[in-house]
């Protein structure tokens, strides 16, 4: 009971002194991602860990069991605040709902860096990334370039209401509409390869004339590709995330392209920014890690990069 009574005092005092006392106590950065069940987040993790090594700070990367497990992620933030980490780098699965928890962190004197996905919150130290919307636009522009106005496109997307996939879809849709391409269909495939294949099989029935496919992640893209190959068709397929499997497929001349957000940089720069914030050094509000397309032209060097990152 004595412990509990002095507890609040302790923490509040710490918030005051956090700026000065840093040199003395080791810096702990908690990176909280949307999930750790895909290559993408694994690479973010790798980047964050690398930054930790380079800057000599302790980095722990955590995430809920699935990208849609919003409350799981929020509980993670809460618990890391309790652990009084020096700073948080968070990729919010559901930005608006995360804001109260960011406020909480701020109140506890814990600076918050947003990575991969931005939130409309002024308290943030910085946003590190490019956003899924821009990625989607990039995919759209590529299809425009390849097919030109009047081109017939379908979009295979992840779960409705999952902001990541909503934004990627919207980005593409906006560009395609603007440039006068025909979006024959938008179908959900649960971010999963098997379902991506099934959905594409069915789409090929309903729209034999489809010329281009954008899938909001590489898993679905590779599934769709499989269906297209099975039907002996030649259709442009653009994926998202630049996962190792996607690169392999591009190199083999199967998958046409994949949107890459340089997840490694997101992780690395995110931690960098967090450490700066802890040390009280200035950080710019927006750190663009760049989004770009991987096609057969640049796939080789991308693969090499990836192999170094994943230490293969």
């Amino acid at each position, binding site marked *: 009971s004595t412990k509990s009574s002095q507890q609040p005092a302790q923490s509040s005092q710490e918030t005051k002194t956090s700026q000065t006392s840093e040199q003395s106590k080791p810096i702990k950065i908690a990176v909280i991602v949307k999930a750790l069940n895909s290559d993408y987040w694994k690479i973010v993790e790798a980047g964050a860990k690398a930054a930790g090594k380079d800057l000599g700070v302790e980095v722990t990367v955590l995430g809920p069991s699935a990208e849609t497990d919003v409350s799981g992620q929020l*509980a993670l933030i809460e618990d890391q605040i309790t652990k009084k980490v020096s700073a948080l780098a968070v990729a919010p699965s559901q930005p*608006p709902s995360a804001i109260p928890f960011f406020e909480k962190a701020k109140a506890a004197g814990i600076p918050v860096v947003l990575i991969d996905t931005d939130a409309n919150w002024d308290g943030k130290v910085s946003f590190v990334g490019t956003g899924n919307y821009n990625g989607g636009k990039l995919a759209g522009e590529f299809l425009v370039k390849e097919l030109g106005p009047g081109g017939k496109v379908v979009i295979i997307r992840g779960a*409705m209401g999952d902001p990541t996939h909503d934004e990627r879809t919207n980005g593409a849709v906006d560009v395609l509409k603007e440039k006068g391409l025909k979006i024959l269909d938008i179908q959900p495939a649960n971010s999963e390869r098997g379902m991506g294949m099934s959905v594409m099989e069915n789409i090929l029935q309903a729209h034999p004339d489809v010329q281009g496919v954008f899938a909001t992640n590489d898993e679905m893209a590779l599934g769709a590709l499989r269906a297209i190959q099975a039907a002996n068709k030649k259709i442009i397929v653009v994926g998202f995330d630049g996962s190792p499997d996607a690169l392999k497929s591009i190199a083999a001349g199967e998958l046409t392209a994949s949107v890459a957000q340089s997840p490694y940089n997101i992780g690395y720069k995110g931690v960098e920014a967090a450490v700066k914030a802890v040390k009280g050094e200035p950080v710019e509000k927006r750190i663009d890690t760049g989004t770009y397309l991987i096609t057969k032209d640049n796939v080789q060097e991308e693969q090499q990069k990836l192999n170094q990152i994943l230490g293969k």
Partner: protein
Amino acid sequence: MLEKAKNTQEAAKINWGKVKNILSSAGVLIALIVLSAILAILSPYFLEVENLMNIARQSAINSLIAVGMLLTILTAGIDLSVGSVLALSSVVMAILIKNMGINPLLGMIVGLGVGAFLGFLNGIMLTKLHLPHPFISTLGMMNIARGLALILTKATPISGFPPVVQFIGAGSIGVVPISFLVVIGVYIIYHIFLTRTPTGRYIYAIGGNIEAARLSGINVEKVLVIVYTLSGLMAAVGGLVLVGRVNAAYPLAGLGYELDAIAAVIIGGASFMGGVGTVWGTLVGAIIMAVIRNGLNLLSVSPEWQTVIIGSVIIGAVYLDVLRRRMETKTK
């Protein structure tokens, strides 16, 4: 003389019954205590007041949903739609308050109404359409409600609510979260409902032997409709707390909550065959679920290992209870 004997006997019996009850709900409690002890050793933060309050907050929503789920499971049923009902009721509330500028309190009440109504529909499908098992009706509702939530919101979250809405989910008296106090209140009410009112007892009777319940003149259909309505209502209450907690309503809210709720109920010692289970067991079950996750987070266990450990702990917790019961029957 004989009277005396009988009475003392009675007394003895009643005590024995009480003891047994306490023991039985203690069953899971033991698991919770063991688990907490381990975590307290492994993490210095676990026992901090702040953290305990986190657990209180993090267990609140599941606790609220689980008590509704308990009712359905007591009748040998199930409600898979709770997660979606939570989502739909909360987005309706959000739309009313934010987009239509309706008085927040009224909006909240309507939100609860929506939840209750969806539950009512589950009950009607079961009793009037005679669908063979609530699994079907509530699975259907699970999909329908989720879809409607997505349609109404165009799949985008609605955020930024007035304090009164946030109060239940985010407010606290001193260090104690309001949401936790709500849980306690709700559980006391349901305890009384289930143990002290005819309808409460009928719920057990229907699960125990539905035919016998009918022959005893119980209006089985009516009770079942009440049960599913309450389950929907509790899901909406959970939604209210969630919206307050995150100051946003989003269409994918409550995804997969049904599994957590069912787990809490079963870990809490209820039986899928119906007729067996207590609110306190369920509460402990819900807290266990929250404690596992909280502990793993404090220990910064990586997500993939977290799933492994959560799976093992669920099994372990229930197994502990099994062992306890066996000892109990041995000793008596």
